[in-house]
């Protein structure tokens, strides 16, 4: 800076000090201040002025004023700044940025800006105001508070301490506008001096005040009318709606009531507009209002002394009463929702409603919400008062919605029970089944669609429970509402947890979806529970995680599928809506484009925080890149779920006919369930087969019990038979088990320890056939194999085993009979012809038996066991779940059981076979020359017996195999007269007449099958009467023409019931003789 400038600055500083501090130049204080100022001004550390910073500071200050509510101040400030900046040509000034210097200076000096107000801009006493227009620089104006003056109505008092002549000229000037505006700047008053035309005021101030008062009155009234509502409803008696055009139609109410002498009370009238609005409010909240009164809970009525001018009270009531019904319906539905709260019952236990009810309530609320939105829109429409809104027009608009409300209420009444009283599972299952029932039996499309919607929404709870159970292994039923429940049962002193179904209502039993769900879910639940017990549930989770990262919930998948299925039915409707749909498609495409754009930008930004913030709107593929957070499910789910349900409803509405929902639902559900949860069953099956070696066990069982491993079992049973027949102490479980172990350990060393033999009862017989009945072969299995190989199953195996043992024994015995023992060739005695004959007879008998039993045995082990075994193996490899394995195995077992003739229906055949086997004992006993000689007659008997057995077996077996459904007894008509003995209670043992027809049929059957002997057999014509069996001499059958076969056959029927019928002689010859005798 130049010296001159510095000098100027110095001088100015001195003046400044004097102005601020009032120190004189020679004072000590002055000198101190001077030093201070000079040093600060010369040696400051400030940077040069930044105009941008100053502008920002000014803007900030304006904002501050606005925030503090001082809008006028902010505006004024901005104006001043703008006028300051534009008023002077700062560019020409030698000091650069002078304007910003000055403004910065002022901003730095500003204090307490929050207290700034425009009052401070008023001229105070002694201030000069400079006005470019006047040229009168030294005029002083004093501001008179005109507003105050006018309001108080006082005389012009005015104290002016400065002598100024000019002011009296304009002290009387008044201006009406100023009373409202305190922010009158001095310039305004100056303007008044500038000959701006003012209305010349007549100086009658009293009249002025009165007119002013009147005007104010009018303004206030108008304001009140437009802004404030009187409580006319409390003064109904005086309430009369003013009618503009009085005619008969418009004021019929008054006319009627005036002429009607019975009217004691005054009738208040409202406008139709008011009543319409109140009607709409009632749909929103059901409570007492002016027109509508609440009589009791959920009952509403119309007030009797109120009407609109153009209707009498009766007409008014009748047109509005139908709505009261709907109010009640809405009230009921809303009350149901509000009652679904957690409560405490008498025992102060927390009672919570079933979640199904809550879901159902949510669905109901959506309908109500839509209705209420419509109501609000209607009200907005009415409020505009552009159209003509009457009761009729309103009821026409409301009709469709009220219809829906009615349908909903109707359904609601039928399906809901009091959840506070009944257990939750009952309520929930009843709700679902009743909804389904309503759906199936509804009479209109609208009703069906509503039912479908409600049903699907309510079903979500059950589906969630199922989903959690079957995918994660936890049956989480927090409100105890699911129909399958885990129950701890005491079975054989073991606590077993089982799943039981609890279904109470008949309606649930007829609900196919419920039944279907139960079936499938229980079945799958078994697999899951097994996995949980095996502690392998994590495998399922792993499998699921591998399959899909984003696991869609069962609900959403079901809805997707349902939408898809339903859309198949909606093809013809689509054509009519193409225009709309095109628009929609365009919109959707447009949206999709925008979305793509956004996603693209997001992905290029690589800003993980932004991505996290936008996660709700982004597809999951992008979001996968998030490695910080744990993997979360897309929260978009809940939104999509809501949208989809709505979509479903909309889709349904599009279709013009009622859909076959049962089929669709069942099909969809079964598809989804199979797809999602099959993996559990397969996993269980794989675990059982691979880890627990189920198939190995089954095979081993077949080897042993079914004697498929002939070489091993051969050794065992031969030893067994030998021991039984020769060893007195054979009946020892331990001894027999050791025997078994010895043999098995050679072939199956790993599993030989599982086998054991027990002998029950105190047996001391040497007869193998009897001994075998008390032997049981045990195979120890632990859980989980014991699920397949239960005690019953092993019992069946044992039965088959015993039968096989008997057969084997018979063959073994017969095979061990040597001819030399019988013929005794060492003896030199000449045998006579009779002896020879007997020997031959016995030998042939042996052969016959060998043949018969041998063929049974071959049939059994060859055809039956082998083939069934192969089938079993094949089916096992194809099985996809444990339950399938169990059922297949049980089926196999029962087939074998049946083919071994061990079932009830083949009891007679089994008896025959047993008899034949027993015959072996007789043969063996007589297999020596000496004994044979004494057994001539016995041979007779044995031979004949054999013939009987053989023929019977031949015929019966053939028919059993080929015509297994033929039940001979059914061909006989009932002759009830014969029945009066207890022995004949069982109809199988009932002996009845054979009619001609049945005889023909039986002949047909018999001719189709030939016994091994080749002799054609005819069915005997003989009939029996019960009494005939009592004694041989009495009663013979009516038709008597017995041929030999017939006699044999009839005799076989006899011998079966030998114990019951006292047959004296067991020889067919005897019978023949007797019959002959009778004929004579």
């Amino acid at each position, binding site marked *: 800076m130049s010296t001159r400038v510095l000098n100027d600055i110095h001088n100015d500083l001195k003046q400044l000090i004097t102005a601020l501090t009032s120190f004189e130049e020679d004072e000590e204080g002055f000198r101190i201040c001077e030093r201070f100022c000079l040093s600060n001004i010369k040696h400051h550390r400030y940077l040069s002025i930044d105009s941008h910073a100053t502008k920002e500071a000014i803007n900030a200050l304006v904002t501050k004023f606005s925030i503090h509510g001082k809008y006028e101040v902010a505006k004024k400030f901005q104006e001043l700044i703008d006028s300051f900046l534009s008023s002077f040509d700062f560019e020409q000034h030698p000091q650069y940025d002078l304007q910003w210097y000055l403004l910065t200076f002022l901003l*730095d000096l500003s204090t307490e800006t929050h207290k700034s107000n425009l009052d401070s801009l008023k001229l105070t006493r002694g*201030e000069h105001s400079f006005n470019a227009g006047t040229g009168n620089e030294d005029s002083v104006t004093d501001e008179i508070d005109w507003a105050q003056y006018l309001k108080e109505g006082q005389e012009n008092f005015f104290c002016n301490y400065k002598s100024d002549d000019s002011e009296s000229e304009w002290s009387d000037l008044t201006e009406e506008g100023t009373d409202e505006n305190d922010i009158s700047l001095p310039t305004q008053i100056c303007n008044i001096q500038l000959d701006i035309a003012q209305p010349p005021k007549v100086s009658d101030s009293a009249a002025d005040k009165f007119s002013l008062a009147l005007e104010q009155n009018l303004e206030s009234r108008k304001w009140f009318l437009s802004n404030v509502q009187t409580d006319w409803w409390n003064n109904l008696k005086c309430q009369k709606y003013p009618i503009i055009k009085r005619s008969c139609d418009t004021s019929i109410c008054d006319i009627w009531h005036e002429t009607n002498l019975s009217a004691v009370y005054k009738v208040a009238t409202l406008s139709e507009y008011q009543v319409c609005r109140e009607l709409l409010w009632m749909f929103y909240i059901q409570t007492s209002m002016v027109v509508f009164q609440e009589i009791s809970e959920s009952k509403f009525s119309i007030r009797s002394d109120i009407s609109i001018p153009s209707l009498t009270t009766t007409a008014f009531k009748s047109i509005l009463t139908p709505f009261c019904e709907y109010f009640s319906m809405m009230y009921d539905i809303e009350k149901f929702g509000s009652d679904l709260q957690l409560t405490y019952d008498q025992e102060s236990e927390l009672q919570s409603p079933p979640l199904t009810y809550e879901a159902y309530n949510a669905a109901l609320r959506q309908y109500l919400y839509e209705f209420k939105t419509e109501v609000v829109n209607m009200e907005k429409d009415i409020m505009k008062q552009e159209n003509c809104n009457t009761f009729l027009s309103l009821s026409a608009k409301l009709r469709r919605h009220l219809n829906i409300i009615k349908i909903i209420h109707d359904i609601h009444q039928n399906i809901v029970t009091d959840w506070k009283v009944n257990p939750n599972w009952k309520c929930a299952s009843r709700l679902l089944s009743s909804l389904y029932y309503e759906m199936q039996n509804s009479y209109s499309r609208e009703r069906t669609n509503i039912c479908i919607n409600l049903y699907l929404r309510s079903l979500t709870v059950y589906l969630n429970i199922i989903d959690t159970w079957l995918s994660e292994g936890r049956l989480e039923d927090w409100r105890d509402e699911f129909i399958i429940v885990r129950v701890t049962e005491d079975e054989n002193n073991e606590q077993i947890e089982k799943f039981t179904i609890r279904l109470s209502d008949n309606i649930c039993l007829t609900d196919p979806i419920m039944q279907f769900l139960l079936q499938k879910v229980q079945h799958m639940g078994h697999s899951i529970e097994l996995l949980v017990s095996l502690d392998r549930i994590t495998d399922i989770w792993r499998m699921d995680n591998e399959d899909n990262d984003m696991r869609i919930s069962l609900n959403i998948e079901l809805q997707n599928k349902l939408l898809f299925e339903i859309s198949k039915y909606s093809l013809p409707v689509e054509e009519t809506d193409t225009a709309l749909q095109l628009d929609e498609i365009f919109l959707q495409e447009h949206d999709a484009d925008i979305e793509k754009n956004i996603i693209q930008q997001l992905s290029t930004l690589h800003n993980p925080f932004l991505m996290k913030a936008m996660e709700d709107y982004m597809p999951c593929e992008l979001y996968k890149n998030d490695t910080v957070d744990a993997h979360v499910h897309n929260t978009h789910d809940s939104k999509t779920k809501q949208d989809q349900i709505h979509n479903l409803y909309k889709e349904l509405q599009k279709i013009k006919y009622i859909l076959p929902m049962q089929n669709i639902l069942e099909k969809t559900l079964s598809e989804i369930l199979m797809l999602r949860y099959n993996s559990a069953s397969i996993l269980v099956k794989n675990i059982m087969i691979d880890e627990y070696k189920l198939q190995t066990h089954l095979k081993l069982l077949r080897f042993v019990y079914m004697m498929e491993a002939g070489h091993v079992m051969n050794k065992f049973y031969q030893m067994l038979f030998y021991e039984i027949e020769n060893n007195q102490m054979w009946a020892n479980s331990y001894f027999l088990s050791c025997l078994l172990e010895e043999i098995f350990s050679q072939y199956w060393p790993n599993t030989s320890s599982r086998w054991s033999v027990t002998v029950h009862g105190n047996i001391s017989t040497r007869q193998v056939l009897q001994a075998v009945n008390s032997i049981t072969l045990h195979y120890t299995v632990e859980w989980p194999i014991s699920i397949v190989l239960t005690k019953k199953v092993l019992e069946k195996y044992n039965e088959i085993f015993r039968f096989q043992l008997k057969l084997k024994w018979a063959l073994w015995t017969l095979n061990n009979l040597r001819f030399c023992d019988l013929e005794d060739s060492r003896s030199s005695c000449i045998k006579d012809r009779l002896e020879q004959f007997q020997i031959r007879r016995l030998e042939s008998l042996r052969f016959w038996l060998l043949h018969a039993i041998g063929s049974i045995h071959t049939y059994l082990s060859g055809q039956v066991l082998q083939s069934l075994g192969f089938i079993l193996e094949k089916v096992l490899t194809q099985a996809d779940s444990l339950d399938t394995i169990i059922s297949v195995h049980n089926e196999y077992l029962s087939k074998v059981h049946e083919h071994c003739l061990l079932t009830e229906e083949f009891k007679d055949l089994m008896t025959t076979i047993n008899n034949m086997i027993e015959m072996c004992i007789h043969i063996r006993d007589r297999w020596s020359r000496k004994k044979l000689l004494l057994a001539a007659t016995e041979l007779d008997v044995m031979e004949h017996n054999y013939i009987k057995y053989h023929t019977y077996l031949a015929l019966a077996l053939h028919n059993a195999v080929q015509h297994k459904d033929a039940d001979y007894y059914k061909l006989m008509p009932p002759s009830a007269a014969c029945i009066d003995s207890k022995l004949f209670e069982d109809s199988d043992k009932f002996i009845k007449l054979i009619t001609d027809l049945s005889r023909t049929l039986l002949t047909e059957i018999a001719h189709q099958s030939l016994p091994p002997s080749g002799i054609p057999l005819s069915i005997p014509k003989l009939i029996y009467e019960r009494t005939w069996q009592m004694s041989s001499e009495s009663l013979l059958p009516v038709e008597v023409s017995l041929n030999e076969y017939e006699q044999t056959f009839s005799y076989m029927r006899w011998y079966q019931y030998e114990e019951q019928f006292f047959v004296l002689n067991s020889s067919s010859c005897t019978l023949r003789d007797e019959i002959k005798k009778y004929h004579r």
Partner: protein
Amino acid sequence: MPEPVNHQVNAARKTFQTLYQISKLLNTNLDQTTLSICIRLCENGVNPHALANVVKELQREVKAMNDGQLESSASKTSTTK
């Protein structure tokens, strides 16, 4: 005076008025005289931050002094009464 000069002077006055009003609005406690001196200083190139600092200090000291004087006079009057 020639017209343009008059015009310039008027403009300057108007500017000054505006600035004064701004200062009043901002509660700077400056009267017109002091403001004109400060404007002159700024025109001569003084840094406004420094100047503002100085002014603030002086105002503060003056206030403190006055307060001190008031207190002493009040105590004096009370003692004399």
